[in-house]
């Protein structure tokens, strides 16, 4: 059968993008942006494995399965896992979705400043003092870990390289709120990038 197209239809078909997601931002090697025969077969295979499904399954439940069974990349597997959950109507029939768009699902990132803290340890010269009747008795007290007081002499000597920094979780939320409130939402969204 031969179809006759108008010039407009022809141009639209030429420009139609069956491959990428997010207006051409993301492209995958093994999957297109629609459910095709390969994807529907993958979904049906996963369904037949009969994996017990919780009410609200996380995509991570299926990611490794897609990677191992179909040799897909992690990003492809994450996207298919998300869409498998979305399209699974528990009939096991996924061919009816062929041609339907796949929803993008992937890692996004946004860069900003974060409060961090670290613990650092050091030594300071000092003296222990305690009350006793003789130096020998004081020595015995120290052996028993008993002392009255300690007095610092000088400053702390420490190394500040190789510190084990940790996010200061108590302040991350406040810091983020401050940074977001100082910018237009659209500017922040423009700065959001697609992660690995």
């Amino acid at each position, binding site marked *: 059968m031969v179809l006759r197209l108008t010039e407009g239809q022809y141009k639209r078909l030429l420009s139609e993008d069956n491959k990428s997601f997010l207006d051409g931002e993301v492209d995958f090697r093994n999957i297109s942006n629609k459910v095709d025969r390969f994807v529907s077969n993958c979904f049906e295979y996963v369904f037949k494995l009969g994996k017990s499904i919780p009410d609200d399954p996380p995509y991570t439940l299926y990611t490794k399965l897609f990677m191992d069974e179909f040799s897909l990349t992690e990003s492809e597997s994450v996207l298919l896992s998300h869409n498998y959950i979305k399209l699974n109507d528990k009939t096991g029939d996924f061919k009816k979705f062929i041609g339907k768009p796949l929803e993008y699902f992937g890692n996004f*990132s*946004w860069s900003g400043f974060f*409060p961090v*803290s670290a613990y650092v340890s050091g030594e300071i010269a000092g*003296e222990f003092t305690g*009350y006793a*009747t003789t*130096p020998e008795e004081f*020595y015995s007290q120290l052996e028993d870990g008993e002392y009255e007081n300690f007095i610092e*002499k000088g400053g702390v000597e420490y190394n500040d390289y190789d510190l084990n920094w940790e996010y200061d979780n108590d302040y991350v939320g406040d810091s983020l709120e401050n940074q977001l409130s100082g910018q237009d939402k659209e500017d922040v969204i423009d700065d959001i990038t697609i992660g690995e």
Partner: protein
Amino acid sequence: MKIRLTENQYKRLLSEQETSEELIDYDGVHKKMGKKIDKFISKLFIHIFETDKITPQTMEGPYEYGYKSLVKIISEVGDYNRHSSLILAHNYIKYFDLIKNGDVENLIGKPLEYYALFKVDVPLHYTGEVTGTGYGSIEGYSTSPDKFFDQIERGEFDINDVDVNPEEEKDQIYWHLDDDVTRDQIFNDFDKLIDKEEITWGQWY
């Protein structure tokens, strides 16, 4: 009455005297107090017991809460300096059974035991918390940048790859003594850390 001593007795008495004086007169401020409890001290002790009801039990606990009040009373009532008062306070406890019985006669002549603050140098371990600002990214899985923005607002994200530059924050370290580590080190390296010969008298405070 004259007593004739052998050479050994004479030497022993000389050395006893020297040792006692060295202790009692360590800092040269105990001239008023002898080496033994005299009539004045015994009456002072009994007076303090009858007036202030201080017992060894009421003095239990750290120095600040125990000895300090007794030292102050002895210093004020007996007009002793604070170091002498500390020695007397220690001996108040030592001879408390005689004191509570009002046994003046048996108290008189009892030797006063030296008691003072000693000190020794050791390394103290400190731990501090240093704060800074890191530049990095937050990440999350989503279907679009708009949805991810909403997730950020809800606090649903992971923090990733923070590059920290603490240079500006170095001076703001809040140090505190790590008592456990210090005690552990003293316990584990006692012989290496503490030389008995290096123990000295502390500064009275």
